[in-house]
């Protein structure tokens, strides 16, 4: 089956400083596939390029950032080559996105129901009257009680969780194939987090929407994701299905991440922290970007960035440790 979204060697650099000569490689050659009905968790520390990679898909990286290479195909069309006029109708209609902070992501001057309606009319998805009806249905389906009355309320009259639901309703109004959720639960209470995750799962099951879930919360990942990709300093260091990653974390960074996350049912085990801090993008280490914090680092790691090695079917890892026993290595 052809993946809905195929990201291949996507790279977004920021050109800053004097005469834009300093290059910050925020996203540096990441690849992943997203099939219909899948939920891919993109995990990583703050500042490792998760959000920038999502905005790159939509071609919304602001200056001084620029997508320098790669291919993003949505059902076979390369989005990076489309004219802006067509791109406007990809955003929201084919690929949609929800943000982290529900408190500031809705326009305070437009009634919330109308905001959902507008998300549809922008793309001539349905007529205005029909859009109104659909907005009411959407509000009901994302779990807003009494949509008829709430339709004409302004965002400030809603609580955070309810605003998140409205945002989700806006994002899914045109039935997009891909939904990017950029830390959708970070700003919410734990109970509301659960409800929002449930909602995302329902969407995924009901409409087959593929979801790219950006998060740094492993609890969220294990809850709903089918696949995981771990990002570190602009690169994907490990990806695989959630079971593969959970049972057999391979990249030292992935292992460390899991060891620093509490698991239910495992008592008496101290959580470990990863020593050091993520490298500054201004001053990336040579070779493997992780080698300074890695306890397995070899001489080779200081010099050459490892290619990706396939450990099991569908489980790949960019680390020299697996050079010998990998099933297949892709040399760059």
């Amino acid at each position, binding site marked *: 089956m052809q993946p809905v979204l195929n990201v291949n060697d996507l790279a977004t650099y920021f050109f800053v400083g004097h005469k834009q000569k300093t290059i910050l490689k925020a996203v540096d050659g990441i690849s992943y596939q997203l099939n219909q009905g899948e939920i891919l968790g993109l995990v990583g520390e703050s500042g490792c390029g998760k959000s920038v990679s999502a905005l790159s898909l939509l071609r919304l990286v602001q200056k001084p950032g620029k997508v320098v290479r790669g291919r993003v195909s949505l059902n076979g069309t390369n989005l990076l080559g489309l004219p802006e006029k067509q791109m406007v109708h990809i955003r929201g209609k084919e690929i949609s*996105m929800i*943000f982290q902070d529900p408190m500031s992501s*809705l*326009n305070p*001057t437009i*009634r919330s129901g109308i905001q959902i309606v507008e998300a549809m009319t922008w793309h001539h998805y349905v007529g205005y009257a029909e859009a109104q009806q659909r907005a009411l249905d959407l509000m009901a389906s994302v779990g807003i009680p009494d949509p008829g009355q709430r339709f004409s309320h302004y965002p400030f009259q809603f609580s955070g969780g309810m605003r998140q639901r409205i945002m989700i309703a806006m994002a899914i109004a045109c039935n997009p194939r891909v939904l990017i959720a950029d830390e959708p639960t970070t700003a919410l209470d734990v109970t509301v987090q659960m409800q929002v995750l449930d909602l995302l799962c329902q969407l995924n099951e009901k409409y087959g929407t593929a979801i790219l879930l950006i998060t740094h919360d492993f609890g969220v990942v294990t809850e709903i994701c089918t696949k995981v990709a771990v990002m570190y300093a602009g690169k994907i260091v490990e990806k695989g299905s959630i079971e593969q990653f959970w049972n057999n974390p391979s990249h030292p960074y992935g292992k460390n991440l899991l060891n620093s996350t509490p698991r239910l049912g495992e008592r008496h085990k101290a959580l470990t922290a990863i020593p050091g801090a993520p490298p500054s993008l201004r001053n990336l280490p040579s070779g493997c970007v992780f080698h300074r914090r890695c306890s397995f680092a070899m001489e080779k790691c200081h010099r050459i960035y490892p290619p990706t090695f396939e450990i099991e079917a569908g489980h790949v890892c960019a680390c020299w440790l697996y050079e010998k026993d990998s099933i297949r290595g892709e040399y760059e």
Partner: protein
Amino acid sequence: MKTKQGFWYQALVNLSHNKLGFICGAFCIVLIVVGIFAPWLTPYPYNEPHYYPHAYADPSWEFIMGTDDLGRDLFSRLLYSLHNAIIISIGATLLSVTVGGTLGALAGYVGGTLDFILMRITDIMFAFPSFLFSIVLVTSLGRGIPVMLLAVGVTSWVGMARLMRAQVLVVKNLEYVDMARVLGASHWRIITRYIIPNSLGPLIVSITFSIPGAMMVESGLSYLGMGVQPPIPSWGTLIAEGATAIRYYQHLFIFPAASFALVLLAFTYFGDALQDALAGKKQS
């Protein structure tokens, strides 16, 4: 829970808690209505002389504010001054809001080279002594009401442009604008539905301050004899004429000066109150 009521309703509620501001606001509205319909409200035409025995008449039931040297009714002339002041100040404000608001919004939204060029133009305008500029315009283009309107408006758009640009710069980086962009809104929709409505608050406050400002410039010009062509009355000319007669006919000075002060105070207090009321909206 309140339903169907937005920010402007809330601002109105906030405003009504401020008694002075609310009264001043009501007074301003009365002034504007009276000013616009002044030609139909005056008891006498502004230029109708009632010579002897009515020249320099004291206030009486016949002429409630007395008459001037030609026996013209001062009250009628004051209403006409209000008429001119309102037309010129509101017209000039509209002009400066349209020009300044558009240029500022454009500079803020587009950014880059366009922003640089537009802002340097406003800097040049800002550095120019604006009152002098108005005088130059009036002396070279004549003293009609449209010219006055232009002379006052052309100098005041600069502040509006800067304000609007600053507002747009703030709003355009807010998350809900990103949200609109992500959901596929075009630039036009982002500007008209997202950026402009959310940048208007300070602009409206600035408008209420700009109206008395424009009145000041207009009467300042006419005080110096650069205002609208006499015999069309203007507050500046009335005050200037009253000042020459102040030792003998105090009413000729007191009524224009006091009413002018009252009008300016009302607009300024209203602007203040409106600013507070709109700022309160952000706390909810």
